[in-house]
């Protein structure tokens, strides 16, 4: 459709077409310091929201053959403070509080009385590396039943002997592969790996697998989220 027109008209048409692109400038908001933080927080929040929607309670993380295991000496020990916070095993108990019928101090023997599950699962660190380890323990779901946790509660939070702390959404806590773990590679946890009790959640990123647990709380609202999350990491980070 050729039509003859004069150059002024073309200039006007071009200018109008160029102006249509002005919404792209809105992305510049990310470069403004006062706006950058809330925008990125919103973006991360949206990702967490989507992550929670993508989580499927019945979907299991892959499990592996013993021959796929990373050898125990090559299973990294990550901590933010000390490898060994010096837990006194004789006096150790898990202190349970919050929306539960039976709060109180639980000994390792009481926890180990629950059915034991062992699984070879992948441990993925937020840094990018991954290893396959053998983890043994009891289902968090079984423990929550034992302590009479309110089924309508939304979070399980834990505190650790090294002042680390973490939280889990209830759907993930109830997942059949989410463990209160007291064994790795068929041996009681070593101090570096979080003795006497740690989390092993193959549907979550590494920093959620808190070690040296001392306290467990069931709650409807979340105050602090987790040591890394409160510094800007993803709150949900489900794999």
């Amino acid at each position, binding site marked *: 459709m050729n039509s*003859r027109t004069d150059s002024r008209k073309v200039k006007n048409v071009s200018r109008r077409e160029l102006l249509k692109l002005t*919404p792209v400038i809105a992305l510049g908001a990310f470069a403004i310091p006062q706006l950058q933080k809330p925008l990125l927080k919103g*973006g*991360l929040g949206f990702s967490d929201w989507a992550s929670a929607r*993508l989580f499927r309670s019945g979907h299991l993380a892959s499990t592996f053959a013993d021959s796929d295991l990373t050898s125990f000496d090559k299973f990294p020990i990550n901590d933010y403070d000390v490898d060994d916070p010096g837990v006194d095993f004789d006096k150790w108990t898990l202190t349970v509080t919050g929306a539960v019928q039976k709060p109180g101090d639980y000994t390792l023997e009481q926890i180990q009385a629950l059915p034991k599950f062992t699984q070879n699962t*992948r441990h993925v660190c937020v840094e*990018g590396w991954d290893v396959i380890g053998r983890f043994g323990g009891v289902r968090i779901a079984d423990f929550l039943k034992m302590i009479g946790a309110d089924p309508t509660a939304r979070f399980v939070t834990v505190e650790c002997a090294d002042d680390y702390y973490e939280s889990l959404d209830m759907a993930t806590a109830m997942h059949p592969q989410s463990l209160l773990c007291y064994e790795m590679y068929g041996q009681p946890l070593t101090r570096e790996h979080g003795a006497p009790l740690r989390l092993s959640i193959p549907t979550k990123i590494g920093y959620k697998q808190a070690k040296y647990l001392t306290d467990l709380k069931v709650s409807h609202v979340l105050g602090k989220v987790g040591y890394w999350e409160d510094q800007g*990491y993803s709150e949900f980070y489900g*794999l």
Partner: protein
Amino acid sequence: MATRALTIEDVKTGEVTQAVYEHPFVVRLCHWVNAVSLFVMVGSGFQIFRAFPSFGAKIPQKDLINWPKAFALGGWLGGALQWHLTFMWIYIATGLLYLGYQVFSGNYKQVLFVRRDLPGVWPMVRHYFFFGPKPPVSEAYNPLQKHAYTSAIVLGALSVLTGVAVWKPVQFSWLAWMMGGFHLARLWHFLIMWAMLAFVFGHLAMVVLHGWNNFVSMLTGWKKHPEYPSE
């Protein structure tokens, strides 16, 4: 598809030129938003990579490269992840909008590399790199351009798929499985980024060499003095 075309008469000199409407609004919008997103995704991706610059084991760790912080965005791992996990949605949304528009408008014919374009590739390579004669221009993009743009679109899709496999290796275990597991998915994601960067470098070089006219057309949609028949 009939291209909108104009014959322009300069009001002062009376000179007559042609112009065609080469890039629809949605294509231009997606192009520029994607340019920003790609920059952010690559920059923050480098910062994320700095946390573990290796594709081997953690113990013992053998770094592939000590990536300089100057070419990284986000300041630290957590900050970079915030950028990455925010802009991935913009990147995906732009990609879907672009693909949807191209398919439903029929405009995809402008860029899609098809079998018919195959014989034209070598003459263009000869022209660009070995001083061969310039093949006749019959449409907006020559076969080599179509090949490059189609590849870039495929790479864009693959960057998302490999990224999802790295982000959600459990929920999208089938994706991770197709890539050989989480560990290799991370490597694919990295390699696809480099392939995309190779495209971007070539693309920018061609813009610098060939054309103000091309550059303006991606802003206004209109290209003056098209080398091909406007209808």
